[in-house]
């Protein structure tokens, strides 16, 4: 049933597949990034095509840039910085990975970055250990060098309240995967921090009229608002009248339906339709399949689970994969 696609270097810390599943980037503890490619779409054999040093410290996470902006990745390193690297062929026809931009660490570490595309603009949202969120716009669509800070805020509903020095362990973010011309740019964000108000997952939407980001929904029941969030994943929507977002907290994995129309206060209607037992601890990662009907999750119990809803809307664990040596 399972097939081994490739064997990774010693001390690999993280991997990420590109949009088509034809390239894999793998980061290691000594700051090296390896790129694996497959020659043709039908083949399942991958070979390492590039290997280069990103940083002197360990790579924690790799995020691919959307393909219409090039073959590029963002690497988050353990020193709290992150950098953008791009594959280019320049003079003399030599293929190389080039550093486009380094976002150095200042007072806080970066926890996560995610890319979103709206109209023709590439946006980068980065969450930091001090609970700040920064959104950058790419200025030139053909060049990943110049980024402009577009907004900076904290993950709280009441913008008046500011929290002094939160300490965040991790952040979970996901852009709305839909990208129609009319689509508002929006993403969902939650924290695992010591400030309860920051934690709960909120859906942020860009208000075109006032040119600012607004929280339009909060994905937590009143009694759960302080729960640490481990992972969030926005489901692809191929035609549902509502959005589905999975949120993993210390209490388990909850499925949220989010309506598409704003109420007079500018909020979206939300409903928690399921709370699933999850992984007896931290959830590391959640991934929706292409139809948005099956959720794959993995966590600290070391297994992979698949979740589906039946016709009555009841979510259940459909299958479990247990790694064995």
């Amino acid at each position, binding site marked *: 049933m399972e097939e081994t696609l490739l064997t990774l270097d010693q001390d690999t810390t993280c991997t990420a597949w590109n949009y088509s599943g034809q390239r894999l980037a793998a980061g290691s503890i000594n700051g090296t990034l390896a790129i694996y490619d497959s020659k043709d779409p039908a083949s399942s054999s991958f070979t390492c095509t590039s290997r280069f040093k990103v940083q002197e410290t360990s790579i924690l996470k790799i995020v691919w840039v959307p393909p219409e902006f090039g073959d590029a990745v963002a690497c988050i390193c353990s020193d709290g910085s992150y950098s953008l690297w791009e594959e280019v062929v320049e003079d003399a026809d030599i293929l190389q990975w080039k550093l486009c931009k380094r976002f150095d660490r200042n007072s806080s570490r970066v926890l996560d970055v995610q890319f979103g595309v709206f109209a023709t603009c590439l946006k980068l949202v980065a969450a930091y250990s001090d609970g700040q969120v920064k959104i950058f716009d790419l200025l030139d669509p053909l060049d990943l060098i110049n980024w402009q800070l577009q907004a900076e805020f904290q993950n709280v509903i009441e913008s008046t309240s500011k929290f002094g020095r939160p300490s965040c362990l991790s952040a979970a973010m996901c852009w709305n995967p839909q990208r129609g011309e009319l689509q508002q740019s929006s993403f969902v964000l939650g924290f695992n921090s010591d400030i309860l108000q920051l934690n709960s997952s909120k859906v942020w939407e860009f208000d075109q009229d006032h040119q600012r980001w607004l929280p339009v929904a909060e994905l937590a029941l009143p009694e759960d608002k302080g729960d640490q969030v481990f992972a969030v994943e926005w489901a692809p929507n191929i035609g549902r009248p509502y959005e589905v977002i999975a949120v993993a907290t210390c209490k388990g994995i909850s499925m949220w339906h989010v309506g598409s129309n704003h109420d007079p206060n500018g909020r979206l209607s939300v409903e928690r339709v399921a709370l699933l037992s999850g992984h007896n601890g931290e959830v590391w990662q959640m991934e929706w399949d*292409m139809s948005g009907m099956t959720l794959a999750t*993995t966590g600290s119990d070391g297994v992979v689970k698949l979740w589906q809803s039946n016709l009555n809307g009841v979510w259940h664990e459909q299958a479990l994969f247990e790694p064995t040596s």
Partner: protein
Amino acid sequence: MPGMTSDSGDHSTSVVPISPNPQPTTYPLNHGLKPPIARLSISWARGNTLRVTVLRQPQPSAANGEEEAGGKVLEVKLSDNRDGEIDDAQWRRIAYGSVTPFALLQSRKNSTSTLSKISALDSTEWWQYIMEYSREINSLLGNPKTSPSLAIEDQKTVLKDVQKPTCFKAAWELMEIFYADQHSQAWIPERLLDWLADYDCLFSGTQPTVHSELVNFQKELVTRQAVEDHPKYWEAISSTLAIGWLEIGVKLLRLHGSYDFDQLGSRETENGLVEAVAVLISKMPRLRADLGADKLGECYKNKPDFVKAWEKWQAQITKLDCSAFWLQCEHHQTRDGLKNILQTMLGNSTSLSNATFHWMELYIAHFLYIRPFTAGLESMYNLAQKCMQIKPVSGHHKLIGLLIGILGENPEVVLAECSKSFGSWMMAHAAELLAAGNIQAEMLLQKEQFQLGGICIEELNRLVYAQVLSSHALTWQIAPIYLSSCMKQGMGLLETVLSKQALQHDQVLLKSIEICRLYELGTVSSNLMKITAVHDWKHGKKGSGVFWLQQARDEVRLNRIAKHLFDFVGKSLSDGSFKQWEGLIELLGPESGIAGGLEFLNKYREFRRSLQQVHSGTATDAAQRAAEALISLMKNPSTPQRFWLPILHDSLKLFNWAGRPLLNVSQTNVLLNKLQELSMARLRPDFVNADLPPEALNSVRLAIATNLGRAILEE
């Protein structure tokens, strides 16, 4: 949406979430890494392929310097339940083969649904369409006939060696009988009999069947003399007759020793009795439309005729049973064997039960000899229940599950069985039969389900199947056919399928664009082109990059490129840097008007080229062409103002052309106006000063004025 792979045993792993709440199935993932495992990471690849990265805890380097693997990436295909019956290549053949019948049926459906209501006449036509569809799909699933037919060639071969049929085909035919074939409604028992004849071997796996017993007996037959002495011989005949395999029964009877030439004299009565039974068997009345040429029995198409014939036939059997000849038959195995056969034919339930193994066989025997007039699903269902009680089976057989669902008139069970045992291909294709043959099923399939985001089960089935198709590089291209028949979410999924294609491969790119064109997915198509364009642009294929950007009508990026090229405009003619971009601009072609900047560049290139010729020679023709190019360039609104002066400065030689003025009065005026405008613009703060000697403006003005003077004189 996954359907699980085959080794799921008996667990429910339905693709479509119809079953209430299945227990999750656990699958091992063998990675072969040494513990400790630090982390897993997951990613969906094409379709419903899941990739799992298993990472080891980073270790201090091993003392012996031996590098160990730091992790493995595994791919798990959550494809379908095919039980290994059909290999991948065969499966793809079926997938491709079913596209045309499916698409044809959909288009027929669409055209009939536009006529408000299907009239009676259309309805017969409609059933023809359904049958045509069913037959075509059926033919993909295996050889047309695999029944245990008579082997004439070798008199001792009772069963032909045939390729084992698949459960897929058996299931399809079962649904065809009950849902699609309107003609079979009157003689469903006989259709089931034929069906069992084809597929009895599929039940042999876990328990004996008539088929498996017959296979065993045949092995013995080759070595046996005087078969009639052996009880197995008589059992085999009874069994074959009980389930209606008359030809085999008769063939076996005629292997009786009394037929041998040297025996005829002494065993005349015995032989007479055997033959009498054989003749009776071959005259058995059958309530069915027709019988194959090599089949025994007599066909009756309507019930009254059949009833008459049936009674007459039974009377003949009874008469033979009471005949005095039995007393003269000295071979007691023959006498007992034949008597038992007559009991079977007379519908003695004990004989029938003894002669059959699987309850399905007993069920068929009941139809043949005890209740030949059974009709209606309800009584068929009750009879099936009764037979199952008599011959209970251990374990669940997928065909039986399906049959019970059909007989129980429970479309939900049928769907669940199809989904559980046969996977998404069956779900997507058999739903057509189900919906055609059963109103309840049709309603179930077409009811919009809020929990599924407003789609119906029929659409869900197709989406699931399309997702399975898109899991493989060789089948994703046919997924759009199924998605286009999904009213609500088909196009949404198609967009996603397309956006995950590996566009670095030309064939994939072109195919994707073609699909976008067919289904009018302009935005998707232009996005695919942009991805290709940016990839090419950044990988040293600038020309191809620009080409795809133009195809995508991506003005934002094209304008960026144009701005980049502007840096080379106005550089001195001898400067080689423009040369390297010339080819690119050439490639943009005269139609590159989509971004203004590129149009300018193209005209500029023309101008530069003609100017080059002027500098290298003195031909007035060339100079005249250059002058025209200059005017065209200066008149064009897309020519940026900051290039006016450099262009005019480049053209000094034209204004001072020795032979005659190259520009007429009105042309010269155009240039003078531009100069005027330029003088005004210099006063503005955002004016960009051209990289030219300070006296450039004056020398240009002087030259144009001179040209004007000469032109006026000329005119």
